[in-house]
C-alpha cells in the first residue's frame, strides 16, 4: 500500500498538491459580485462568469469552453488544448492507440463538424410582438439573435450535438430573455400568461434528456428564460450554516464564492462547471460527494419558485417539517414543467481541512462490487467511491499524460509488473475503485485505513492517489472526448440508473451485453465500447453509469441506430430491476416509461398538479409527463 507506507513528508507534498489543485479554476476570473438587480442593464456581460452571449466563450456545437478541446496533432498524438484544466497543454501518448484499437477508428477517416453556424438555416423568429414589447417596457434584456436562440435550443444529447455539427437546426426558441432577479421572473411569467407564450427555463444547458428541445407541436411563440444572470449569493447565515442563492448560479461559481468565505456546499455533479443550481433542483441532481453532503434534495432548506399561479415557497427555514407531503418534492424533479426556481436556501459546510484521493485495484469487477457493498453495509463510504470496470480502467489509462522522467515510467512498469505478474491479476479483468476522502486530517487517515482494510478482504490492492485522481478527471473531460470521437466517426453517450445491490452485477453484465448485441444486429461494423462504473453507493443499492460509443463508418443513419440501442439498453435496465434514472432526469427522452415507472395513479397525481399550477401550459417544454 503505497500511500500508507509513505512518509510524513510525502503527505505534506500531497496536501500541498491539493491546495494547488482545481486547475480548472485557475483562469476563471474572480469578479466582484455586485447587486446587478439595481445595476444598469448595459453592464458588459463579460464581467459575469457566464455571459449572456455564451457563444463567446463556449462551443456552439460541442461541449464546454471554446479554447479547450482534444485533437490529434500532426504527429498523430492526442493533446488537450487550452489552459483551464490539469490536462491542458499535455500530450496523451496512448490515447491514439486506445482510440484506434477500441473503435477500429482511423485518423485518416475524419468526420469534421460544420465550422460555423449557418444563420440562414435558423428559421426567423415567430414573435409575439405585444409580449416582446411588454418585456422591453419592463426593462428586461431580450434577444432574438439567431446565435442566442440556437444556443438555447439544445442540451447535450448525442442527437442534439450531432445535428449541430452537421449544421442542421430544428425548432429553436423565438426569443431569449435574461431576468436578473426573482422579481424579473415574476414579471416574465405574468406577461407570458397574459400573452399566452411558451416559456422554457434555461440554466446551464447541460441536459442529457432532450429537456431543452422545443416541442415540435408547439405553435405559440417559444421564449427561453435564461437564468444565468441571476447568479448572486444573497446571504450567508453562519449560525445556521445556510446560504441563500439565486438559482442561476453555476456550480463552479457557487463553490468558488463560498470557498472564499471558507464554506462549500459539497454538491459536485460531474457537470458542475456549467450546470446551475436551479437546474439541479429541477432535475433532482446528485453530486459525487453525496456520501458526506447529500444529494440536492438533502441540501435544500428552502426553494422559491415562480409559477403561473404565483410564487410557491415555505414560510420558514425549519430543517424538517411535518406539514403534509413536502411541497419541495413537487418542485424537485419538475424539469421546468411547473415554473422557474429563482432562489434556493442551501446547507453549507466549512471547507474540509484535508482531502485525499486514493484507488484500489481488484482482480475483477465482481470482487470490486462486493467490496463496495461491504463499504455501504458498514456505512463507511468515503466522500466518493467509484468502481470502474476493466474497459473503463483501460480508458482511464489511455488518458495518462506523457511521463516526465524515465524514473516515473520505470515505476509505472514496476507497478504493473507487481499487479499483473506478482499478484496474478489478469489485465483484462482487473478493475479499479477510485476514492476521495475528505474531512479533518486525522479522521481521513483513519477512514482511509478502514476502507483499505475492507478492500483487502476482497482482494483489493491500494493503487495510489494518481490513479484515483485520474479517474475523477475522466468524468470532467469525457464530454470533451466525445467531441474528439465525433471528429473521427465515433459517437457515444452516457446514461445511468440506480439498482438494488443484489442486482448490480447482473444488470451491468446484461446491459453491456445487450448494447454489444444490439449494435451487431444493427450492422455496426466494430464492437462498441460498452462500459460501466458504479458511481454511488447507498444503503440499499447503487448508482451505475454506462458509457456507450461506437464507430459509425458505413452506417447511413448512425444517430437513429444510436437511439435504438440506447432504447434497448434502457429496456434492459428496467427489466433487470434498475430505475428509469438516478439523476439525469426524464425529459422527453425517457417519457415513454414514466407510467410504467411510477404507475398510472402516480402519473395522474403529477398531471393534476401540473393542471392546477399551469392550466395554460405556459411551461410547455413537454418534459416528464
Amino acid at each position: 500500500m503505497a500511500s500508507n507506507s509513505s512518509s510524513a513528508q510525502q503527505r505534506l507534498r500531497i496536501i500541498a498538491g491539493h491546495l494547488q489543485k482545481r486547475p480548472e479554476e485557475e483562469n476563471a476570473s474572480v469578479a466582484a459580485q455586485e447587486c446587478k438587480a439595481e445595476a444598469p442593464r448595459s453592464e458588459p456581460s463579460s464581467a459575469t462568469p457566464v455571459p449572456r452571449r455564451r457563444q463567446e466563450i463556449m462551443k456552439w456545437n460541442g461541449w464546454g469552453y471554446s479554447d479547450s478541446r482534444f485533437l490529434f496533432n500532426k504527429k498523430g498524438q492526442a493533446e488537450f488544448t487550452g489552459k483551464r484544466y490539469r490536462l491542458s497543454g499535455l500530450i496523451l501518448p496512448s490515447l491514439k492507440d486506445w482510440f484506434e484499437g477500441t473503435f477500429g477508428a482511423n485518423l485518416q477517416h475524419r468526420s469534421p463538424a460544420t465550422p460555423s453556424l449557418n444563420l440562414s438555416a435558423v428559421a426567423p423568429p415567430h414573435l409575439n410582438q405585444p409580449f416582446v414589447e411588454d418585456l422591453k417596457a419592463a426593462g428586461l434584456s431580450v434577444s432574438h439573435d439567431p446565435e442566442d436562440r440556437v444556443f438555447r435550443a439544445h442540451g447535450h444529447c448525442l442527437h442534439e450535438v450531432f445535428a449541430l455539427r452537421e449544421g442542421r437546426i430544428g425548432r429553436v426558441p423565438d426569443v431569449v430573455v435574461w431576468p436578473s432577479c426573482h422579481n424579473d421572473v415574476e414579471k416574465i411569467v405574468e406577461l407570458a400568461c397574459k400573452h399566452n407564450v411558451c416559456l422554457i427555463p434555461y440554466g446551464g444547458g447541460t441536459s442529457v434528456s432532450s429537456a431543452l428541445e422545443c416541442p415540435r407541436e408547439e405553435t405559440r411563440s417559444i421564449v427561453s428564460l435564461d437564468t444565468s444572470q441571476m447568479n448572486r449569493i444573497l446571504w450567508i447565515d453562519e449560525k445556521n450554516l445556510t446560504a441563500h442563492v439565486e438559482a442561476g448560479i453555476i456550480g463552479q461559481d457557487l463553490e468558488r464564492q463560498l470557498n472564499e468565505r471558507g464554506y462549500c456546499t459539497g454538491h459536485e455533479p460531474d457537470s458542475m462547471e456549467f450546470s446551475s443550481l436551479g437546474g439541479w433542483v429541477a432535475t433532482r441532481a446528485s453530486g459525487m460527494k453525496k456520501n458526506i453532503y447529500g444529494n440536492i434534495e438533502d441540501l435544500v432548506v428552502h426553494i422559491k419558485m415562480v409559477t403561473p399561479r404565483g410564487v410557491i415557497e415555505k414560510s420558514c427555514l425549519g430543517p424538517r417539517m411535518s406539514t403534509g407531503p413536502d411541497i419541495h418534492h413537487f418542485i424537485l424533479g419538475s424539469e421546468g414543467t411547473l415554473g422557474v426556481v429563482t432562489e434556493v436556501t442551501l446547507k453549507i459546510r466549512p471547507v474540509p481541512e484535508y482531502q485525499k484521493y486514493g484507488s484500489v485495484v481488484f482482480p475483477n469487477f465482481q470482487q470490486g462490487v462486493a467490496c463496495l457493498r461491504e463499504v455501504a453495509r458498514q456505512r463507511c463510504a468515503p466522500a466518493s467511491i467509484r468502481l470502474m470496470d476493466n474497459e473503463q480502467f483501460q480508458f482511464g489509462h489511455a488518458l495518462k499524460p506523457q511521463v516526465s522522467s524515465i524514473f516515473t515510467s520505470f515505476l509505472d512498469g514496476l507497478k504493473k509488473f507487481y499487479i499483473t505478474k506478482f499478484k496474478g491479476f489478469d489485465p483484462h479483468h482487473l478493475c479499479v475503485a477510485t476514492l476521495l476522502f475528505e474531512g479533518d486530517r486525522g479522521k481521513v487517515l483513519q477512514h482511509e485505513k478502514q476502507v483499505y482494510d475492507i478492500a483487502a478482504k476482497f482482494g483489493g490492492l491500494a493503487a495510489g492517489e494518481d490513479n484515483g485522481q485520474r479517474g475523477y478527471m475522466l468524468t470532467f473531460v469525457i464530454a470533451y472526448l466525445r467531441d474528439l470521437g465525433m471528429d473521427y466517426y465515433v459517437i457515444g453517450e452516457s446514461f445511468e440508473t440506480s439498482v438494488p445491490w443484489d442486482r448490480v452485477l447482473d444488470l451491468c453484465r446484461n446491459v453491456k451485453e445487450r448494447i454489444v448485441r444490439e449494435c451487431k444486429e444493427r450492422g455496426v461494423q466494430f464492437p462498441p465500447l460498452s462500459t460501466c462504473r458504479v458511481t454511488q453507493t447507498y444503503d440499499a443499492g447503487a448508482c451505475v453509469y454506462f458509457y456507450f460509443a461506437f464507430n459509425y463508418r458505413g452506417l447511413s443513419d448512425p444517430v437513429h441506430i444510436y437511439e435504438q440501442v440506447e432504447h434497448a439498453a434502457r429496456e434492459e435496465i428496467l427489466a433487470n430491476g434498475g430505475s428509469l434514472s438516478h439523476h439525469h432526469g426524464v425529459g422527453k427522452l425517457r417519457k415513454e416509461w414514466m407510467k410504467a415507472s411510477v404507475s398510472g395513479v402516480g402519473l395522474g397525481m403529477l398531471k393534476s398538479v401540473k393542471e392546477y399550477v399551469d392550466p395554460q401550459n405556459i411551461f410547455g417544454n413537454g418534459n416528464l409527463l
Partner: protein
Amino acid sequence: MASRALYSPRHPMLKKRDDFEDILEERRRSSDLRYALRCYTPTLYRGLVPCKASMLKSIVLQSDHLQYVIKQVSSESGESTEGVSEEASLILDEMAHCLQLSTIRFFAFTLSKAFKRLFRSVCVNEEGIQRLQQAVQEHPVVLLPSHRSYMDFLMMSYLLYTYDLPLPVIAAGMDFMSMKFVGEMLRMSGAFFIRRSFGGDKLYWAVFSEYVKTMLRNGYAPIEFFLEGTRSRTCKSLTPKTGLLNIVMEPFFKGELFDVNLVPVSISYERILEESLYARELLGIPKPKESTSGLLKARRVLSEDYGSMYVYFGHPVSVRSLAEGKINRSQYNLLPRYIPQKPSADTHEFLSDAAFRLVRIQEENMVLKPWVLIATLLLQNPDGLDLSSLAEQTDWLRHLALAFGAFLDWPDHEACSEVVSCSLALHRHLLSVSAGHVQLSVTDVPQVETTPEEAVFHQAVVVLSCASYRNQILHVFLRPALLAMAMQSANSNRKDDVYNGFNFLRKVFSNEFILCPGDSVQDFEEACYLLMKRGVLQVLEHEIVMSASGHSTLAFLSSVLDPFLQGYQVVCRYLCEETNENLTEKEFIPAVRSFALKLILAGRLKCYEALSSDLQKNALAAFLRLKAVRKVKVGDQVTLKVNKVAVNSLEDILGGKIPTQKPILARL
C-alpha cells in the same frame, strides 16, 4: 433470429436440410481404445465459473434460495433448521450427478462396440454440431432431445464426447437408480436423478431447482432433459412438460443470465430397440422393472440389425428472443430473487407455448425412413398388399409426404421397389411375405395352442409396433388429415362449417397430438395451404371445394387418423355403457381394454389400436378437459363421474352422425 425461425410458417420445400455424417464410419476404421483415451478438450462457455462437482453441492446448499426454503419448511413443520438442512443435503446426495471423464471414456469404448453391432450407421448433422459449438461458447446451453429410447441420452453424451463438446448433465428419472450398478454408472456419466412425482414437496423442489439453476448460471455444463418427460412408447411426441423448462428459463427471467440457448435435438431410429417392449407395455402386459439383470437379458438385442440412427441438432433457440414481448421481466423487480415465485399466468402460457413449439421443431427435424410410409400403408390395409401395388402406393405417398415437408431420407438413385424390399427386410419380424403379398402378421409366436384373447394380443403387438412407425410421420399429415376429416363430417362446403369441425377435432385430439394451444386458425390455414398446393382443394373466400382429383388424397388422409377416431369412439361407448357408478381412475384402463377386447373378439371392432393404453389415457384426458367426465375424490380414491349425455353426443359427432355445430360445442 432464432425466434423468427421458430414462429415462421413452414415452407418445407425451401428449407435446406443439413448434410449428415456417419460417425460410425470413423469408428469402424480406427481403434476404439485410442478413441476412448484420446485427448478431450471441449469448447467451453466464455462465462464459465470453474467449479467441481463437490463444490456444486455446497453452493446449492448455501444458496439464499435454499436457505430461505429451509427456514420456511422448518417453521411450518416445527422441525429444526439443522434437521431440514440435513434432509436437503440427503436429497441432494440422492440427486446429484458425479460426472467423471473416466466413466465417459469407459462408455466411449463400450458404446462404440455396441453401436457398431447395433446400427449400420449413426448419422449426425455436422452443421448442427458447428452451431452447437458456437452456442456453447456464447450462453449456457440446454439440450432438449426427443425421447424414444433408453439409448437417447447415452447417445447424446457419446456424440458430444466425439465432437469435443462439453459433456451434458442429464435429468433422469429415479427409476434408473434401482438398477444398482448401472444407476451409479449413469450418475458418473453425468445423469442426475429426480423423483417422478414430488408435487407438494417444497424442499425437494427447492433443492432440485437450485441444483439445476446453479449449474446453468455457472455454465457448469449443458443441461439436458426431455421435454416430453418420459420415453414415448408410441413414437408420437408427448405433450411437453413445462416444469423443468421453467427452471432453466428463470435465470433469464430474473436477469441472472443474459440468455440461455435451447437446442432441440431430434433422435430417430430406423428400428427402435424397445419396439415390441413398448407394444406389450401399451397392451398392459406389465413392464419388467428396470434392473441390471433385465438389461443383461436384453443382450439378445445386440445380435439384431437396427438399421440406421439419425441425430439432428436443431438451431439453437434463444430464450431471450423467444420471450421478447411476451414476458415482462420487470415483474420480478419487487421481490428478492431468492424467494421462490410461482410463474404468473402469462409466464405459464409462455412456457407452454414455447414447449409446444420446441417439440414441433423436434418433430420437424426428425429423419423419416421409407419404412414409415410403408408402415402407414400396411396399417391401412390389414389384409395386406401386393408388392407391386405397395411399391406404387409408397411412391405416391412419398411425394405427398415430401410436398407436406417431411424430412424423408430416401436413398438416391434407387428404384422404389428396391427401397421397399430393403425396408421390408429390416422389419421382417412384423411381416409375412408370401407370393408377392405383404401383410402385417405375427411371426415369432410359439406354436402352442393360444386362446383367442392371446391371439388378439399377439396381433395387437404387431399392429402397435407397426403403428409406432406410422406415428413418426403423423405430424406431417396431421393438419391436412384433420381438415380432411372435418370436410367429411361437415354438412356443407362452407368454410366456417369446415373450420368448426376442424377446431372440434383439434380440441378432441389435443392430448393425442402436438397441437399448440391457440394455433387453431394457423393450423387450419396451414392445412388449407398444403392441400391447395397439392391440388386437392380449392379454397375460395367462403367455401372449400374438393377438386376432382382430390378424392384419393383426402381418403388416405382421413384414414390416417381413423384408428384414433375409432379408439375414441370405443372409449365413448364404454363410458356410456359402463354402469359402475364408482369407476375409479385406476380401473379405467383395464376396463376399457377388456371392453375393446370383447368388441374385437365379437368381430364388431377391427381396430387393434383401440387396445392401446396410451390412446385410452389420452381420450380420458380429452373428455376430462371437455368436461364430459369429471374426477371426484372419494377418500383416497379418485372416481370418474360420466356425463352420459355429453359423452353420447361426443361419440355421435366423432362418428359423423351429427355435424359439429356451435350449440353442441357450447354444451360440451
